[in-house]
């Protein structure tokens, strides 16, 4: 029983990370029909830059905010410099390669400057866990699902209530039409990538204290976030959130009752099967293909 509680708790927290990264992909995709393929590095920057900032004597909170802002700017810059020029005609894949290349640069630069060793990210919420019988969780980890809910709701409101959000949806729906009502689609896309970067970096900052900051922390999580987004049908925010959390939790139960070593093999296989059953993704809507 306490095992189940444990899996639910940790699954929830790690799932929230997948979901938040997935939301980042969702925001990028809706705006540009392209993504920063190495988005995991933005996630990583969130945590690493926080540590760096704290080395300069800046206290945790401002350091975290600073890190998120810088990472968001980096994400936007990547859109401008490496996605836009390679996303001109429909279903181009240039952006995939350029973002991968940039990701390589970011990651290796971080390794060279920050070191290859993981560094702790001290947080008062990650010092001692809350115990529930034989299970337990760090307050820091409970922060993740909370943050996820806030982010998801905030995103929903942003898209529905704010002018900028409406504009983003307009761009997502039809760039030309958006331009014809006076929206600068390119600028909106830039902002979208920045926003996504903020989300990713925030996830990194929040999980950092539990798993430490290191230049390689982003890779796998970025990939899983992307897959989660795809499985959910990348054009559906709620779906991404649900899929992310579900995947996180199911990972824990796979570890608990099937195999820890083969966790990813099993998880990814499940993903592929789902994708084959629901080609548009679990929550994606199916469009009638025009001939």
């Amino acid at each position: 029983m306490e095992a189940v509680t444990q899996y639910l708790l940790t699954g929830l927290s790690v799932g929230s990370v997948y979901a938040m990264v997935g939301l980042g992909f969702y925001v990028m995709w809706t705006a540009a029909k392209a993504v920063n393929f190495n988005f995991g590095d933005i996630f990583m920057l969130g945590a690493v830059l926080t540590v760096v900032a704290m080395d300069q004597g800046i206290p945790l909170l401002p350091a975290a905010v600073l890190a998120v802002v810088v990472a968001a700017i980096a994400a936007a810059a990547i859109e401008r410099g490496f996605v836009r020029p390679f996303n001109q005609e429909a279903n181009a894949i240039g952006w995939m390669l350029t973002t991968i290349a940039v990701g390589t640069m970011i990651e290796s630069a971080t390794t060279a400057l920050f070191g290859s060793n993981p560094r702790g990210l001290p947080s008062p919420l990650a010092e001692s866990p809350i115990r529930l019988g034989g299970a337990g969780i760090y307050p820091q980890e409970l922060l993740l699902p909370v943050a996820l809910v806030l982010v998801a709701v905030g995103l929903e409101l942003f898209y529905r209530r704010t002018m900028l959000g409406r504009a983003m949806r307009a761009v997502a729906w039809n760039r030309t039409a958006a331009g014809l009502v006076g929206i600068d689609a390119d600028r909106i896309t830039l902002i979208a990538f920045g926003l996504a970067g903020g989300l990713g970096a925030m996830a990194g900052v929040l999980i950092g204290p539990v798993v430490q900051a290191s230049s390689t922390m982003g890779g796998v999580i970025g990939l899983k976030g992307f897959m989660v987004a795809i499985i959910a049908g990348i054009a559906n925010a709620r779906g991404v959130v649900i899929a992310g959390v579900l995947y996180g939790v199911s990972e824990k139960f796979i570890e608990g009752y099937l195999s820890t070593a083969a966790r990813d093999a099993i998880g990814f296989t499940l993903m592929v099967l789902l994708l084959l059953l629901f080609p548009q993704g679990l929550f994606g809507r199916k469009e009638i293909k025009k001939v």
Partner: protein
Amino acid sequence: MSGKALGWLALALFAAVLAAFPWTGDLIGERWPTSYELRLVIRAMIIGIVVIGLNLLVGFAGLVSLGQAALYGLGAHVAALLSLRAGFSFIESMAFAVAIPAMMGAVLAFPTVRVRDVYLTVITIAFGLVFVNILRDWVSVTGGASGLANLPRPTILGERLLATRAASFNYYYIVLLCLLVALWVQYAVAHSRYGRALRAASQSENAARALGVNVVAVRTLAFAVSAGLAGLAGGLFANLALFVNYETFTFTASIELLLMVILGGAGTMAGPILGTGTLFAAQQFLQGLGEWQTFGYGLLLVLVLFLMPKGIVGSLAALRARMVAKPEARETSAWPNWGSGLETITAAPDERGQVTMAASGLTLRFGGLTAVNSVAMEVRSGTVHALIGPNGAGKSSLLNVISGFYRATEGEVRVFGQAVANAPPYALAKLGVARSFQNTELFGRMTVLDNVLVGAQPHFRSGFVETILRLPRFRREEREALAEALRLLRFVGLSDFAAEEARNLPFGHQRRLEIARALALRPKLLLLDEPAAGLTHGEIEDLVKLIRGLADRGMTVILVEHHVDMIMAVSDRVTVLDYGEVIADGTVAEVQANPRVIEAYFGAGTGNGPQTEQTEVTA
């Protein structure tokens, strides 16, 4: 073309240089190349084989795989396990190292039936990750992370295969041989109906299906071939290193392979070689950067992608094209031009007056809305049957049902007397149903000639092996197809444009080409979806001549069109649709007199004067 000769020359040179490379030392009197350089070149050649395979997938089939390293690794591990655990000989284990990944590749192709683009890419990524996870943690079989060590030294006829300066480097030549074979396979597939079908399917899947290309089948083939090559390379690697573990075949490796394809120039013959050579060499030379070398690697990639978006070969070709840019005037001949040799195209019509296409109770629904509502119509052979109606009347939907693109919700369609409910487009095409598209769906990046050749697809009997080995039947069929294609181009007056990329044709010419392409199927039933849209009156008159001519030669034509005067000029019979229902059917005169038709078009009480009447029919 001299370009082709140039290509062969380059290949010969390339092969010669590689073959001579180990002996450089004897020429310059140095102990060089050492085993180190030998090994590097061997490894580069091996990776080149994988990249060539991937190029078939990415460059020709337009399917982006980020799991290729896994197939490479599968080959390596099959070879390693068979020689280590089952004592298979080099040749035997290599055979399986090719076969098993090829099968795996075919399985991997299945998802393309359901998913596309980024979704497919994600599946390949997942496949790669799963594979690595299994390699790393199925310790009992794969040796886990420690991998499989001490593979027996491979031998052929007792001859030990080595790759070192000191002893012997006969293995070098085995790898070189395999590389050349891979290059040949790439060439043979690319320059055959398979290559054309792959490129066609990637550029306009709909048009390809309409022209009798079984898209799923060719994609499966592409996957299998590229996986087979990856497996071959894997086997070669295992027998070179005599040690394999998962770390050589990770996601990162897959990315590198893809980068090599793009870097060299996807869809080109020499691209894989140049891409592999450049990137592989770069990895060695960036060693000097120490802890910054991966950074330099990324930087190099970014630079190349920015400066050579089409890859090395692509960009060089573009440059060459610009430098020898010759605006020699191209002669657009009149059309239709009923020369000799066109008989084959209308060779097998149904006999006159027979029902070629019959629909009954045909209904098509998308979710809520009903596009076609219990339509019944008959089209008799050798007639031109026009299908008209206001926008959204369901004309195109009906056409799409007849040509197999949409599945009828109810009712049945009979073509040439047989029920074809739910037959896929390519099957109908093989039966003799050809179609054109409202917004011309040409294969823009293929030459005009290749566009037509795709249409000849269903006439080929020679199989894949015959194609690869260039056996006589293949050669004959290729010759015939080429001849017919050229005839068709002359027929539509585009002979001079044969080598031009289709997307560069002016609009009117594109329509001509699309029709020529459809005719290459030698159809008995031809479906034209607004063929006159965007044509000038001159062109329309020619189009009328063409359609009439085909009908007079026994071909049946169903025509969706707005231009009233054109309809009047060509049609034997007209069916009028409104809100998906047939509201009138008869000769042009009857239909035009029909009050329901007028009502449907102009609304009650409007429309004054012949002018408005006609102009508005064009709405």
